[in-house]
């Protein structure tokens, strides 16, 4: 495909920056929905703002990705292994969009504007639509579970390449 050995610096920065953000977002989401404690409101507010930032980041990342060459997968991978690597990466991108979009729409239809650091607010519906709220509320959870499973697979695969196959896949992202 190409002769680059590593992902470009911008792609590596996006990858690790977003990996940290998504890890924090998932953790914050899972803890805040269960918590009755004082920090819940602060974390909820942060979750929404950084979720909106995530959708901006992933858009920029995708544009950046489509404009650059990426390292070819090792030749000794079978056809289906290469396919599943590609499919899983596009699924990851898909979920990185689906998470924030479902989160925002859930708030939109519950008529809850989103406060951005006290600077301005993102709009919401004037009147609640409880059915559409329910749909996006449940989708936000379903996508979160799918994302968690896929990230686990993804990390597993990266470690498999590095430790078992001893190829350059993990190093290409470092």
């Amino acid at each position, binding site marked *: 495909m190409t002769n680059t050995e590593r992902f470009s610096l911008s792609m590596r920065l996006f990858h690790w920056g977003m990996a940290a953000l998504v890890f924090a977002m998932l953790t914050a989401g899972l*803890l805040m929905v269960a918590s009755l404690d004082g920090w819940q409101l602060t*974390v909820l507010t942060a979750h929404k703002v950084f979720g909106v930032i995530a959708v901006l980041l992933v858009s920029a990342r995708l544009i950046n990705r489509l404009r650059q060459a990426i390292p070819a997968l090792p030749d000794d991978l079978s056809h289906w292994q290469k396919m599943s690597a590609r499919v899983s990466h596009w699924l990851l991108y898909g979920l990185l969009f689906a998470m924030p979009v479902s989160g925002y729409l859930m708030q939109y239809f519950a008529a809850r504007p989103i406060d951005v650091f006290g600077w*301005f607010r993102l709009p919401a519906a004037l009147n609640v639509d409880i059915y559409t709220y329910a749909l996006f509320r*449940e989708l936000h959870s379903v996508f979160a579970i799918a994302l968690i499973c896929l990230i686990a697979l993804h990390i597993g695969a990266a470690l498999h390449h590095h430790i078992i196959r001893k190829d350059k896949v993990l190093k290409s992202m470092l």
Partner: protein
Amino acid sequence: MKKLIWALLLTPMVGLAADEPVNVTAQQFVDLQQGNAVYPGFRRAHAKGICVSGEFRSNGQLSDYSKAPVFQSGATPFTGRLSIAGNNPTAPDLKAPVRSLALSFSISSTEQWRLAMNTPPVMAVADPHTFYQQILAIQAGPAAIKQFFSEHPESKEFLAWAAQYKASGSFASETYNSINAFYLINHNGKRQAVRWAMQPTVTVATTDAQDVDALQNEIANRVVAGNVVFDWVFTLADAADDENNATKAWPDSRQKITAGQIVINNTTAQLEGGCHAINFDPLVLPTGIEATADPILRARSSAYAESYRRRATEQLTGALKEPEND
């Protein structure tokens, strides 16, 4: 902004530290509230209610304290809900110990304000985990609740209120309290802790009506005959008052400001009106009003969200059935 970044990065740690046995989750709390008899599609607390609508007529008196546009002089429409405490949407109105008023001001696409108020002026306990124990004690019976209150001296003011409280014959003649304190933020960024009460403008004697819907029927008829009006009275804390403790009332001598009147001019059955779809989460606040750190207030958002999620999803999947009166 810095605070938010730290909050996001530090949540994983909070999770690891938050393993004290007394802590309950939002899910456990709502499980306890809904009890064994689940009414699909209905609120897990304050399940029985009636939609109301009308307007807030602001006199402008509070506009020096809060930049929220609702406090400029003029009228702002609201959708509201009068309800009784409990998980049962068919419960007899007059048996409930607590009556409530909730309001939603849908001001613009970026400004919303939800309020949920109850008849007691204070809570019996100061945090959600102890509140959970209180509800357990109530469910266990009179001996357990007596024991609970004796172990919780902070419930003294609540008990004194309960001892003298006489439920009236109408939703229109009750006082509805914010209980929790909030901050008003004015144009100069100055912060003032307040509590508020919707004070009735009529008195209605206690009734011995047998009708399970006595209060709903009474208010529906009353509104047909004329507007139901409350004075919206704010109490301003001074430096000696603790805005984060919902078990302690502030002294009567504190400055009070009447911001205007809440005027109810319409009622609708809850499944037909616009109020059923709304989650009256008191932490949905407009610019000019902020949450205090009161642990009871802070606990409400996630519990309301859990109840809302359950009933909204039940409604989406068609599980909501209008229960028969029995």
